[in-house]
C-alpha cells in the first residue's frame, strides 16, 4: 500500500474521528440509541482500517495480541465485577441502586454509574473481540507471525 498515498493520508485523518464517534455512541447509550455493543464495533473498525492500509504487523505494534486479549478479559471482569460489588453492598446481582454506598438518595446516581460501568465493560470486550477475530482471519496462514494460540 506504500504507493497509495491518498489512502494512507485519508486513513490517518479518519482513524481519530472513527474512535471519537465510537466513544460518542458509547456514551449516548445513556440517553438513547447507542451503547457498548455498537460502540465496540465502531472502535474496532478504527484498528481494522489501520491494519488494512498499513499492514497487520504495523497494527500489531500499536495493538499487540496480548493487549487485545487482556482487554477482552477485563471487559467481562468489569461487567461481572459491578454485579459482585452491588451484592457486597447489600443489593441483588447487578442492582445498580447499590453501586453508590449509601442507597438513600444515591440510588439515581447509582443507576447512572452502574449502567455506565457495565457498558464500558461491554464496549471494551466487543472492541477487543472484534479486533481479535480480525487478527485471526487476517493471519490465518500465520504469515505475520501473529501469536497463534
Amino acid at each position, binding site marked *: 500500500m506504500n504507493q497509495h498515498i491518498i489512502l494512507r493520508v485519508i486513513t490517518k485523518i479518519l482513524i481519530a474521528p472513527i474512535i471519537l464517534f465510537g466513544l460518542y455512541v458509547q456514551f449516548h*447509550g*445513556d440517553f438513547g440509541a447507542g*451503547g*457498548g455493543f455498537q460502540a465496540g464495533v465502531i472502535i474496532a473498525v478504527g484498528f481494522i482500517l489501520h491494519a488494512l492500509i498499513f499492514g497487520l504487523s504495523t497494527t500489531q505494534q500499536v495493538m499487540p495480541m496480548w493487549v487485545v*486479549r*487482556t482487554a*477482552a*478479559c*477485563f471487559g*467481562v*471482569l468489569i*461487567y*461481572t*465485577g459491578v*454485579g*459482585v460489588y452491588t*451484592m*457486597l453492598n*447489600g*443489593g*441483588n*446481582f*447487578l*442492582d*445498580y*441502586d*447499590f453501586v453508590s454506598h449509601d*442507597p*438513600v*438518595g444515591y*440510588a*439515581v446516581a*447509582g*443507576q*447512572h454509574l*452502574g*449502567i455506565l460501568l*457495565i*457498558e464500558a465493560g*461491554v464496549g471494551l470486550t466487543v472492541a477487543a473481540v472484534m479486533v481479535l477475530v480480525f487478527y485471526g482471519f487476517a493471519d490465518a496462514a500465520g504469515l505475520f507471525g501473529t501469536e*497463534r*494460540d
Partner: protein
Amino acid sequence: MMEFVMLHLPALQVVVPMLAAPICLLLMRGGLAWMLALVTAVLCFAMSLLLLQQVIETGPISYHLGGWEPPFGIEYRVDAMNAFVLVIVAATSALVLPFARRSIRAEIEPSKQALFYTVFVLCLTGLLGVTITGDAFNVFVFLEISSLATYVLVAMGARRDRRALTAGYTYLVMGTIGATFYVIGLGLLYQATGTLNMEDLAVRLQPLGDLTSVRAGFAFIMVGLALKLAMFPIHAWLPNAYTYAPSVVSIFLAATSTKVAVYVLLRFMFTVFGYDFPVVELSLSTVFLPLAVIAMFVASAVAVFQTDFKRLLAYSSVAQIGYMVLGFSMASVTGLTATMVHLFNHAAMKAVMFMVAGAVVYRVGSTAVASFAGLGRQMPWTMAAMVVGGLSLIGVPLTVGFISKWYLILGALETGDWIIAFMIVASSLIAVIYVWRIVEVAYLTPAPEGAKPVSEAPLSMLIPMWTLALVCIYFGINAELTASIGQTVAEALLNGNGVSPAVAIPEVVPATDGAMEGAAP
C-alpha cells in the same frame, strides 16, 4: 459470609464460573488455569448441593436480578427439577477436571491449554445459566454461551484428529439452526403474550391454545430444542462431535449438554405450555413417542457396527436419549420419574464410559475397538470400570441402568402398553451386543504380537472414573434419593402445571424515587 452466600446462592451459581473464565485466560499458564477451573467447579458443585437442599426444605427459590420484580426483570428460579440438573452439571465438571489435567496435557498443545480451561469454564457457566434461569430469553443467551463454547471445545480435538474441525463446524451449523428456531418460537410467543418470564408465559398462554401463531411457536421451540438434545432423526451432529472432541470434552458433553437440553424441553412442555395445552398431548403421542422408540432401536443397531469406541458410545447416547424422550412422552408420573432418574443415571454411566475412552487414548493413543485387545490384563481397573458402565448401559440389576428401565417399563405397563414395555427390553438386548463386543476384545483377545506393553491409567484418572462407577452401582442398589427427587419433579410438572408459589428472597428496598432509567446493556 455464609449468610451472604446463602442469600445470593442462585446468582453466585452462575457468577462464580463467569468470573473465573476471564481470569483463567489472564493466567495464561495451563497448570494455573486448571487449578482455578478445578476450584471453580468444586465451588459450583457445593453451591448446587446447597441449592438442592434448600429447595427440598423450603420449596422453590426466586432470585430477582438487578432487583427488578419478575415478570419485568430476569428471574432466577430454582425448583427441585433444575436444582437436580444443576447438581448433575456441576458434579460432572468437578469430576472431569481432576481427570482433565493429564488428558489435556497429552491432547492439547501447551499454548492452548489455558484457553481450553477458559472455554471449558465458559461452557459450564452457560449450562448452569440455562438451567437456573426462569426467563425464556435468558435461556437463549446462556444456551448460546454454552453452545459457542462447545463448538470451540469440539474443534480443539484437531490435534489428535483433523476431522474434529469439520465435526465442530457441522455442530456449529446445526446448533445455530436449533438456537434460531428456539428464538423464532420465542418471538411468536412474545408477540402473543408480551412476556418472557416462564411463569408469566404459563399463565398467559393458557387461553391462547387455539392461536395458530402460538402453536407454531410451540413447534419451533420443540424442533430447536430437539436439535440441541440430538433427538432422533436430527442427531446427525452428535456422533462426529463426540468422537473427535478431546476426551475430556466428550465426557463433559455426554454427561451434561444433552441433559440440559432435555431439561429445557421438559420445562417448556410441562411448565410453560402445560400438559393441558392442545398440541402438547398430540405431539407427545404422535411425534415424540414413535421417534423415541425408533431411536432406541436404530441408534443401538448402528452402535453395534461401529469400529470406534467413542463413536459407538455416541450412537449409544442417541439411543439413551430415546429412553429419556420415551419417559416423558408417556406423560405419566412414572414416565416422567423415569426421565428424571435417567438424566442422572445416564450422565453417570456415559461419563464412566467416556472416561475409559479418555484413559485408553492416554495410554494407547487410539479408541479403535481393535486397540482394546489385551487391555483387560494390562489396564484391569480401567476395563473393570468399563464393564460397570457397560452393564449400566444394558440395564443389568444392581446398576443404575436397571432403575431407569424399571421405571420406564412400569410407566409403559401403567398405560397398558405391553408393546412399548417389550420394546424397551428388546432394545436393551441390542445394548448387550455392543457392550459385549468391547468386553470380548478387551478380555478375550490377546494383545497383538510385538505391541508395546501398556500400563494402567494414572490415579488422577482412575479416581474420578471409579467414583462414577461406584455412583453407578450405589444408585443402582439404593435409588431412593434419585427416585424420590424424580417423583417430586414429575408430580410438580403434571399437577398444577408445575407452577408453585416461590419463596422470594427478601430484598432491601432502597428509598428511591426516579431509579427507573437504567437502559438494558
